[in-house]
């Protein structure tokens, strides 16, 4: 264990260092409080052993500073002193000392006291580790439940929205057709405007006035665009609903053996244009894989969604790495890594949430990765992400060679459909 040893007496320091190193510790020494504090600030020491009385920054002050320093992980602090008065000990503990070593030093006592410190640090480390694992498990659980309930909502929503989209889209097509026909008639009428002015001057004046008021010319020239834009908007709504449907897996399909390396290659082929446009480098480290039972189309979609994000995150001439390998425990791993802009830590836990997007409004639906997540879960696999802002992002997909039987004929959320 790494120990910071502070004593202004060279000889004592040397003796203690020799002992500590013999017991297998890694020792960094400092000749006074100031040097020790400086060292402590740049390095991590689970154990600090400090002399009490030193010029300027003494042992108590050093420990006080250590305690005030916000750092993960506990520091076990031992004060070495000739003082044994009750008041002194209280002052030392008040400052944050865990233990005392009395001078002159007894080697055996030194050994056992350091070992106590070591034990406490190890316990603390175990605790931190368990805590972290617990938190991870909890957040994974929350994520799963959140996505499950969202999935049900999405399924219902997609179905409900489908009908209105259907007739609104249709009505729009009818409107466009009939409106254009009506405009043609109107144009013919207008060509007779001069003749009308002769026969019915009042009517001609009124129609002229009304046409001016609504800016008929503008209306006529803009109508096609109005229809185009409305239709494009509707198409976007339809795409969102389609994606939601994919996310909730409303349609059935069967598992078939597939070559995932070939699937990766196919997907890259689809993105060929995008990759070329950005002059991207592709590193392909694919190991031979056994056939994986899966819904190949959906797995392609997962690859596509992740690769698309990777391309978009990368600068020109960026690099995308593809890795595949067989893992012990009958599963395969596909890794897609880019050296792009990375994902901010605060975004990382949301990237699989439906509708979460960092793209500008209207550019991304925020469904790509949640669809990918849903598909991988449905295959009994796992999808993980690591990212460092400015350095890049790694997606790790694991798929079992034996797909989950229980999910067949049911949707992902455990409900049989009626």
């Amino acid at each position: 264990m790494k120990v910071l040893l502070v004593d202004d007496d060279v000889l004592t320091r040397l003796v203690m260092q020799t002992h500590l190193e013999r017991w297998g510790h890694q020792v960094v020494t400092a000749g006074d409080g100031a040097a020790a504090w400086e060292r402590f600030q740049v390095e991590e020491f689970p154990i600090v052993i400090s002399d009490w009385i030193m010029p300027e920054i003494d042992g108590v002050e050093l420990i006080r500073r250590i305690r005030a320093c916000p750092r993960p992980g506990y520091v076990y602090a031992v004060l070495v002193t000739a003082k044994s008065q009750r008041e002194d000990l209280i002052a030392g503990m008040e400052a944050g000392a865990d233990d005392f070593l009395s001078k002159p030093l007894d080697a055996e006592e030194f050994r056992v006291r350091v070992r106590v410190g070591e034990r406490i640090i190890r316990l603390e480390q175990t605790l931190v580790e368990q805590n972290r694992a617990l938190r991870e498990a909890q957040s994974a659980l929350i994520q799963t439940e959140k996505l499950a309930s969202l999935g049900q909502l999405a399924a219902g929503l997609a179905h409900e929205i489908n009908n209105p989209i259907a007739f609104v889209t249709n009505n729009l097509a009818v409107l466009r057709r009939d409106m254009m026909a009506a405009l043609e008639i109107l144009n013919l009428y207008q060509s007779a405007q001069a003749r009308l002015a002769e026969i019915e001057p009042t009517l001609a004046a009124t129609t002229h006035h009304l046409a001016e008021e609504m800016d008929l010319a503008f209306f006529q020239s803009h109508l096609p665009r109005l229809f185009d834009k409305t239709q494009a908007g509707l198409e976007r709504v339809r795409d969102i609903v389609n994606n939601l449907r994919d996310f909730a897996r409303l349609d059935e399909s069967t598992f078939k053996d597939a070559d995932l390396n070939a699937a990766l290659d196919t997907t890259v082929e689809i993105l060929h244009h995008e990759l070329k446009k950005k002059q991207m480098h592709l590193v392909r480290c694919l190991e031979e894989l056994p056939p994986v039972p899966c819904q190949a189309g959906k797995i392609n979609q997962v690859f596509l969604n992740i690769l698309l994000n990777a391309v978009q995150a990368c600068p020109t001439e960026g690099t995308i790495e593809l890795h595949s390998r067989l893992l012990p425990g009958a599963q395969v791993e596909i890794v897609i890594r880019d050296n792009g802009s990375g994902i901010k830590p605060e975004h990382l836990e949301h990237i699989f949430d439906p509708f979460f997007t960092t793209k500008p409004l209207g550019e991304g639906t925020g469904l790509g990765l949640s669809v990918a997540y849903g598909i991988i879960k449905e295959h009994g696999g796992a999808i993980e992400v690591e990212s460092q802002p400015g350095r890049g992002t790694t997606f790790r997909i694991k798929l079992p060679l034996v797909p989950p039987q229980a999910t067949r004929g049911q949707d992902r959320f455990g409900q049989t459909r009626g």
Partner: protein
Amino acid sequence: MAETTKHPILVVDDEPDILFSLRALLRRDFEVYTAESGAQALEILKQHPIHLIMTDQRMPEMTGTELLTRVQGTSSQAIRIIFTGYADIKAVIDAINHGQIYRYLTKPWDPDELREVLFEACQHYDLQVAREKLLRELRQPLEAGMAFVQGLREGRFGELNPLGQAECERVCAAIRDLLARAIKVEPGESESHEHPV
């Protein structure tokens, strides 16, 4: 298209908004009948010669495939089309595989594509009707020919040598075969068609 050549089609959906919308789209090219339920649709089929029936799958009481199965059992030769949201795809696949459906369309549909499919379907109907008519028309001369050959064999027009007898047998068999095939074409029967991708 002249008024008289419009194909009568029947659209079935439990949602009136859909019927209203489809009628507006199709009124110029087809004679559109609408029904809000399977029962209503069957009623209309009894009263009007419908060439094409297009139904939603998901309806209360009678589903689209149920309706089309029942239509198949009647004398109606209407081409059957189903349109559906994704959730119902399994029932539709079954129906297609059982030859009950000419085509399926997904909701929301593309208006242009829908019109195209309906035109194509009506063309298919016309072909089917023309084929049956042709076979029906063929039947009379075939039967007359058969009677003649039979008479020939029985010596009503004079004695035949053995070679003539054999030839009569052969022609008789060929005509019988053709007639059997013509009879086989019963109304309401059509082959199953290409599967959507």
